């Protein structure tokens, strides 16, 4: 009986993870796409230097970090995927969301700038080691760069 309850809890968490995770992802993507359109006029590029430093009026460090949690469904799906190998689609969308969100938050700090130079990303996983083997993890992405305003 106890084991049946455990099985029930598992199925419940799976369904909850799928429904909540799916809804959150859909909402997040809608928000990301809308905000990306709004910030199209502020490019974030990987060029490291401005050719002529005389052109720069001011520059400052900008960063944006985000932590996106894995849902239970994605975790189980990824574990299943680990048996067969192949693309772990469940993680791909997660990392994609995190990277784009971090960029948007970095751009928010760069409000008023003409461009963000030397954009870099750092990614790390959080929580997988802290809570034991079955802990639901999260991915952290940090985007940082140099916001620059040119002399007009």
């Amino acid at each position, binding site marked *: 009986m106890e084991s049946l309850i455990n099985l029930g809890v598992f199925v419940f968490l799976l369904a909850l993870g*799928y429904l909540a995770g799916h809804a959150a992802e859909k909402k997040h993507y809608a928000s990301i796409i809308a905000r990306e359109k709004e910030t199209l006029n502020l490019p974030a590029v990987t060029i490291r230097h401005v050719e002529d430093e005389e052109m720069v009026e001011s520059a400052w460090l900008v960063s944006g970090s985000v932590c996106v949690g894995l849902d239970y469904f994605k975790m189980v*799906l990824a574990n299943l995927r680990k048996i067969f190998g192949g693309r772990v689609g469940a993680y791909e969308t997660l990392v994609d969301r995190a990277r784009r969100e971090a960029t948007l938050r970095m751009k928010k700090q760069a409000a008023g700038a003409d461009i963000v130079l030397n954009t870099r990303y750092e990614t790390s996983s959080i929580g997988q080691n802290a809570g034991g083997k079955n802990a639901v993890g999260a991915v952290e992405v940090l985007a940082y760069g140099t916001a620059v305003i040119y002399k007009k």
Partner: protein
Amino acid sequence: MEKTSPLREFFLLLFGVIGALVVLYMALGMAAGFVAARLPVSTEERLFGFFDEKFLISEKKPNASQIELQKLLDRLTSLIPQKRYEEYNAILICGDEVNAAALPGGNIIVYEGLLKQAESENEIALVLAHELGHFSNRDHLRGLGRILALFALSAIVTGSSSSVTEYLGSMTAGAEMRFSQKQEYAADDYGFELVSKLYGGSAGTSDFFERASSKDSKNPLVLFFRTHPASKKRADRIKKRITDEKTPQIEKTPAPAALKNPDCK
């Protein structure tokens, strides 16, 4: 990003895993069957000796009910032409379940509940003889082999402390072995023949299943998942044999008082 449907992926992978496990389980089941048919008794006793030591001997109390049950089993086993085991043990176990099981090493456990509801000695003899039929066909080893295979698989795939493994473990602990319908019918036939030989007639041999069938759930889902074939079918099979073979009409032997009111303590 390329769009993928996570649900579709999930079920595809899940069915892939389940399919692979089913194939592996069937292969292991066949291997267990192959081994069971050839396992020498001495090896069986060595492998499953823990049943005797940890579980059965401590359960076996030398009271009147236990002695009567053993006597009945001894009368049955004395009729077996080729005995697989040197001694067969009947062990009375407390519990209202109407059930009995054949365990490795020639041990038969009988639940108190089964004796309480029995109306004649013939009926109890049929249950014991049915379990002897499982020994004769080595079903008990096949069943255990499959459960052990399932248990091992589950431990590998889901981890030894997972809920699935625990669930299977509780099944093993309850000695709930799944026999196929074919195995059950073969054991019924064996039991029928042995009991007819003991009493010189087949009276009471279908009683147990007839009573059980009146208590069977009518829920089709329960019927589908039950381990034993429907009792009604089994009672009908035995009754058909009684009429077909025109076995002598005899009086049922009343169950001894010690079995009618079992003392399992």
